[in-house]
C-alpha cells in the first residue's frame, strides 16, 4: 500500500551518539526533520538537565536580540530578510555571538541612557523657556494697573518687585468676583483681607512670594481646586497653556502641559503650595523676579537648548548607525540562536550512559527514511571530526507509534481537514486521498453556480499561481492565512462548482442556452394572449432532451421550476449520500483486512453492507428505475401519472404496508413484477442484520475466552513446561488481533460496547441518509438567494431604461457585485464548506475512522523557526 492511503510505517530507534559528535549530529537531524525524539528523563525537571546552562545562555541571547529588534522596529529601520537559512553554528561560535550581542546591547543601552538624560534636560529647558515666556505675559498684564496705582499714591517706588503685592490684591478681587463665592461669611473675610492689602503694602511688612512651574494639562482643574481649598482662597493662580506638545523622555509619548504661576503670602502658605505642587507632580522652576533677569535667563536657556539639539542629533545618528548595522544580521542571528537552543533542548532529552562518553537517545523514525537519517548522522560525525560512528538501532515496542502522513503542499490542506477531526490511528486507512475529490464535489453540489464558482476558482487560481511571493510575505492576518493555506481546496471547490453550475444551468441565477431548448410551444396565439399561465405538456411539447444539464427553459418557468428542481436535487442528494456511505463501509473492510480482524469482517462489515445495500441502495435503485421506466409519452401503465412515489414506497416497504394503486389505469402500485416479494425479503434480511451485528461478535469472543481458559490443561501430551511457555507466548498476540483491541475488557463491557456500536450504525444509517438531504437544501437556498439578489438589485438597474439607464446599470452593478461576493460567495461558501465538512466528519468517517492516534512531530528546525521559537518552550 502506498503511503498516501495509510500513515507511514514507524519504528522506535535507539541512537548512540558520541558526546563530541552529538551536537553536530542533532544539528543535521534538525535540518532533516524526520525524527521525533522521546524524552528519556521525564521525571527530571528543566533545571536539573545536563545542558541547562547552554539553554539559558541561548535564552539570554534571544532576549538581547528581541531587545535589539524592538529598538529597530521603534526606529522604523527595515530588517533585511534574505531568506537564507544558516546552519546551526558550532558550539564554540556561541561565545563569539554572545560577545557580539553583549557589546551591541551595552552600546545601545548606553546610547539610550544618554539620549534619555539629554531629552530630560531638553524637556526641562523647554519648560523653563515656556515659563519665562508666559510669566512675562502675566506680569505685563498687570503693569498698566500698577502704573495707575503709582500715579495715585505719588509713591516713589521704583518698578521693583516689591510693588507686586498691591497688584496682586487687585487681581485677587477680580478673581474672587469671578468665582462668586456663596459663603457670605467668607466673602466678608475676603473683604477684610482686601482692606488689609493696601495697608500691608503701605507698611511694607507683608512679604508676597510666588512660584512658577509646569503641570500636565489634564491635572490642572483638580490642582486649581485643591489649591483653593487647601489655602482657603489665599493664593492666586494664573495659568497658560503650552500649545506645542512636549515629548516625555521616559516613554517618548507626546504630552500637553500648562504653565502656572501661584502668588501667595507668607512662608506657611509657601510650604503648603509647594507640597501641593509636589503632590500633583508639577515641576517648579526658579523664576527671577526682575524682568531683566528673566530676559537674561531666557537668553541663556535658548543657547543651551540649541547646544542640546546638536548633541541630541549626534546621539540619534549614532544610535541609528548601530541599529542599521544590527538590522542587517538580525534575522540571521535569530535563526542561529534558535537553532542552537533547539539542539541543546533536544540534547537535554537524551540519556547519558555510565561512562559519560556517549549520549543515548530514543526516537520514532519512518522506516523508509532510515537511510537518509543514517547519511545525516554520518555527515554530522564527519563534521565534528569524531572517529566513532553513531549507532542507530531498531527497537521492539508495544507502544503505538505516532501517525505520520507524508504530505505535499497540495494534499496538506486536505490532511489538515481530516486531522482537525482526529489524527488517524497508526496505519489506519487515511480518508484524506478520497476527500480530495469528494470534498470539492459535495461542496459544489451545494454551491452550484457557474458565476460564483468562477469567482472562487479565480481567487484560488491567483493564490496558487502567486504562491511563492504570497508565502514569502508571511502575513499575520489569520483569516488570510486560512484562505492561503486552503488555496488548493478553494481552487478545486471553485472548479467543481463551475461544473455543477453548468449542470444546474445556473450562472448568477440565469441560464445559458447553449444547445437550444428541447421544448416548443404548440398553443395558438389567442390562447397565449388570454391565459395568465400555461402549462407545457411533456408528452406533446417536448422535442428532445437537453444534451447536458438542465434545460434553460426552466429558468423562465417560475411556477414549477422549484418543484421540478426539488425532485431532481433531492434524489441526487440521496444517491450521492448512499454511495458515499457505502464507500465508507468498504474502506472499513480494508482496515479490517489490514489489521487481520477476520472476525470483524463477518460480524460487522458484512451485516453493515447488507443493511445499507438492502434498504438504502435499493431505494436509489428504485429512483433509477423510476427515471428510466416512466415517461410522459409512454402508454398508461408507465405513463407519468402512474409513477409511484419513492418515499411512500420505501415507507410502506419498511412498515410492511400495502401500497395503494394510484389510478385504475395504472393496474399496480409497483414498478416491476415481484417487487412486493423482493421488498419483503430485503427488509427481513436487513432486520436480521441487527441482531447479527449486536450479538455475533461478543458471543465469539466469549467462546474464545472459554477455550483459552481450557488451554493450560491441554499440554499433557507435550513436554510440559516448554509447550506451556510457547502457548502462553502465542496467545496474547492472537487475542489482541482477534478481538480488535478488546483484549482485556470484561464481557459485559464488550456487550455494551457492541450494543452502542450497533445502535449507532442502524440509527445512523437512517439519519445519515436523511442528513445528505442538506445537499439539496443548501443548493436550493443558494439558487434562490442568487435569484433574489438579481431580481432585487441588478434588475432595478436594468429596468431603468432611458438615457440614465447606462449610469444606473453602472452604479447598481457595483453594488450587486459587492453583495454577490460578500453574501453569496463568502457567506454561502462558508456555510456550504461547513456542511461539507460535517458530511465528511460525521456521515463518511463514522463508518470506518477511529482517529485515536497522535501526530508525528519531528524535531525540525523549519517548524521551530516558523513558530518563532515558541514551540520549544
Amino acid at each position, binding site marked *: 500500500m502506498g503511503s498516501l492511503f495509510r500513515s507511514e510505517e514507524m519504528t522506535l530507534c535507539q541512537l548512540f551518539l558520541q558526546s563530541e559528535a552529538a551536537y553536530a549530529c542533532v544539528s543535521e537531524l534538525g535540518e532533516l526533520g524526520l525524527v521525533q525524539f522521546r524524552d528519556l528523563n521525564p521525571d527530571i525537571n528543566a533545571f536539573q538537565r545536563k545542558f541547562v546552562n547552554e539553554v539559558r545562555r541561548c535564552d539570554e541571547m534571544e532576549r538581547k536580540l528581541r531587545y535589539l529588534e524592538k529598538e529597530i522596529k521603534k526606529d522604523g529601520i527595515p530588517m533585511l530578510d534574505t531568506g537564507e537559512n544558516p546552519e546551526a553554528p558550532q558550539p564554540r561560535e556561541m561565545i563569539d555571538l554572545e560577545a557580539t550581542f553583549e557589546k551591541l546591547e551595552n552600546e545601545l543601552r548606553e546610547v539610550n541612557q544618554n539620549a534619555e538624560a539629554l531629552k530630560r534636560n531638553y524637556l526641562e529647558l523647554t519648560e523653563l523657556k515656556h515659563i519665562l515666556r508666559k510669566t512675562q505675559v502675566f506680569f505685563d498684564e498687570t503693569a498698566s494697573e500698577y502704573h495707575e496705582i503709582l500715579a495715585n499714591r505719588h509713591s516713589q517706588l521704583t518698578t521693583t518687585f516689591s510693588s507686586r503685592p498691591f497688584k496682586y490684591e487687585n487681581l485677587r478681587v477680580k478673581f474672587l468676583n469671578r468665582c462668586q463665592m456663596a459663603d457670605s461669611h467668607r466673602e466678608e473675610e475676603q473683604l477684610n483681607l482686601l482692606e488689609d492689602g493696601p495697608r500691608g503694602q503701605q507698611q511694607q511688612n507683608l512679604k508676597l512670594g510666588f512660584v512658577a512651574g509646569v503641570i500636565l494639562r489634564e491635572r490642572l482643574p483638580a490642582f486649581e481646586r485643591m489649591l483653593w481649598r487647601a489655602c482657603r482662597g489665599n493664593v492666586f493662580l494664573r495659568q497658560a497653556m503650552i500649545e506645542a506638545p512636549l515629548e516625555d523622555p521616559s516613554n517618548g509619548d507626546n504630552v500637553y502641559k500648562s504653565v502656572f504661576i501661584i502668588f501667595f503670602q507668607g512662608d506657611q502658605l509657601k510650604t503648603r503650595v509647594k507640597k501641593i505642587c509636589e503632590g500633583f507632580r508639577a515641576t517648579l522652576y526658579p523664576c527671577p523676579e526682575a524682568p531683566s533677569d528673566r530676559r537674561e535667563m531666557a537668553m541663556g536657556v535658548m543657547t543651551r537648548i540649541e547646544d542640546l539639539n546638536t548633541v541630541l542629533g549626534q546621539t540619534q545618528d549614532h544610535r541609528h548607525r548601530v541599529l542599521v548595522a544590527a538590522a542587517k544580521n538580525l534575522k540571521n542571528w535569530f535563526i542561529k540562536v534558535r537553532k542552537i537552543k533547539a539542539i541543546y533542548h533536544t540534547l537535554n532529552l537524551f540519556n547519558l550512559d555510565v561512562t559519560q562518553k556517549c549520549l543515548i537517545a530514543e526516537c520514532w523514525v519512518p522506516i523508509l527514511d532510515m537511510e537518509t537519517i543514517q547519511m545525516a548522522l554520518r555527515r554530522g560525525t564527519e563534521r565534528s571530526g569524531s572517529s566513532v560512528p553513531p549507532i542507530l538501532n531498531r527497537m521492539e515496542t508495544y507502544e503505538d507509534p505516532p501517525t505520520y502522513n507524508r504530505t505535499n503542499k497540495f494534499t496538506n490542506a486536505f490532511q489538515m481537514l481530516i486531522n482537525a477531526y482526529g489524527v488517524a490511528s497508526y496505519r489506519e486507512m487515511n480518508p484524506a486521498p478520497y476527500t480530495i475529490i469528494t470534498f470539492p464535489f459535495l461542496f459544489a453540489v451545494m454551491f452550484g453556480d457557474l458565476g460564483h464558482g468562477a469567482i472562487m476558482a479565480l481567487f484560488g487560481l491567483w493564490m496558487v499561481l502567486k504562491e511563492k511571493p504570497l508565502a514569502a510575505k508571511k502575513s499575520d492576518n489569520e483569516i488570510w492565512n486560512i484562505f492561503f493555506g486552503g488555496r488548493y481546496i478553494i481552487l478545486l471547490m471553485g472548479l467543481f462548482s463551475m461544473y455543477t453550475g453548468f449542470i444546474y444551468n445556473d450562472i448568477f441565477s*440565469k*441560464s*445559458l*442556452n447553449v444547445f437550444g431548448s428541447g421544448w416548443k410551444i404548440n398553443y395558438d*396565439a389567442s390562447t*397565449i*394572449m388570454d391565459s395568465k399561465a400555461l402549462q407545457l405538456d411533456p408528452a406533446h411539447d417536448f422535442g428532445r432532451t437537453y444534451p447536458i444539464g438542465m434545460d*434553460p427553459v426552466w*429558468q*423562465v418557468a417560475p411556477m414549477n421550476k422549484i418543484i421540478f428542481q426539488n425532485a431532481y436535487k433531492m434524489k441526487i442528494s440521496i444517491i450521492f449520500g448512499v454511495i458515499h456511505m457505502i464507500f465508507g463501509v468498504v474502506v472499513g473492510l480494508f482496515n479490517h483486512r489490514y489489521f487481520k480482524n477476520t472476525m470483524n469482517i463477518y460480524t460487522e462489515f458484512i451485516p453493515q453492507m447488507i443493511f445499507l445495500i438492502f434498504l438504502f441502495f435499493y431505494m436509489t435503485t428504485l429512483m433509477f428505475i423510476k427515471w428510466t421506466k416512466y415517461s410522459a409519452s409512454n402508454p398508461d401503465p408507465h405513463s407519468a401519472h402512474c409513477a409511484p412515489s419513492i418515499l411512500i414506497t420505501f415507507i410502506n416497504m419498511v412498515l410492511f404496508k400495502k401500497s395503494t394503486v394510484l389510478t385504475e389505469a395504472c393496474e399496480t402500485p409497483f414498478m416491476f413484477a415481484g417487487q412486493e416479494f423482493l421488498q419483503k425479503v430485503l427488509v427481513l434480511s436487513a432486520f436480521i442484520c441487527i441482531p447479527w451485528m449486536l450479538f455475533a461478535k461478543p458471543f465469539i469472543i466469549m467462546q474464545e475466552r472459554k477455550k483459552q481458559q481450557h488451554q493450560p490443561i491441554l499440554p499433557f501430551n507435550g513436554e510440559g513446561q516448554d509447550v506451556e511457555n510457547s502457548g502462553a507466548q502465542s496467545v496474547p498476540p492472537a487475542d489482541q488481533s482477534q478481538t480488535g483491541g478488546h483484549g482485556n475488557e470484561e464481557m459485559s463491557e464488550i456487550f455494551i460496547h457492541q450494543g452502542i456500536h450497533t445502535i449507532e450504525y442502524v440509527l445512523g444509517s437512517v439519519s445519515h441518509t436523511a442528513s445528505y438531504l442538506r445537499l439539496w437544501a443548501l443548493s436550493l437556498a443558494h439558487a434562490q438567494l442568487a435569484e433574489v439578489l438579481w*431580481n432585487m438589485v*441588478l*434588475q432595478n*438597474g*436594468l*429596468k*431603468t*431604461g*432611458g438615457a440614465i*439607464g*447606462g*449610469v*444606473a*446599470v*453602472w452604479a447598481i*452593478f*457595483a453594488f450587486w*457585485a*459587492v453583495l454577490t461576493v460578500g453574501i453569496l460567495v463568502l457567506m454561502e461558501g462558508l456555510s456550504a464548506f461547513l456542511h461539507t465538512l460535517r458530511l465528511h466528519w460525521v456521515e463518511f468517517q463514522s463508518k470506518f475512522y477511529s482517529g485515536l492516534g497522535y501526530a508525528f512531530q519531528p524535531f525540525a528546525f523549519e517548524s521551530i523557526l516558523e513558530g518563532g521559537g515558541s514551540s520549544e518552550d
Partner: protein
Amino acid sequence: MRICGPKLSLCGLIISVWGIIQLLLMGVFYYIHSVALIEDLPIEEHYKTPSEFYAAADRAYSQNAMNCWIAALIYVVTLAVSTWQFYANSRASSVN
C-alpha cells in the same frame, strides 16, 4: 496624486474588470434577444396584440444592450482611474 487608498483602488480595479466582462457579455445577450433576460426588460406586463409586445420588446432589448455597453464603457473609465490610483499607491508605498 492619491485620492483613494490601496484597498479601495484594488476593489475598484477588480469590480471594473468584472463589470467590463459581464456587462459586455450581457450587452451581447440583449442584442441577440436572449429569452433568459426577458424578465429584466423595461416593458409592461400586458399588451393588447402580439405585434405591440414584439415591438416594445425589441425596443427594450436594443436599449438595454446599449445601456449595458454604456455601463461597460464607464467601467473602462473606472478601470483606468483605479489602475492609476493603484500604481500611485504602490509607488508611494515603495518610496516610503
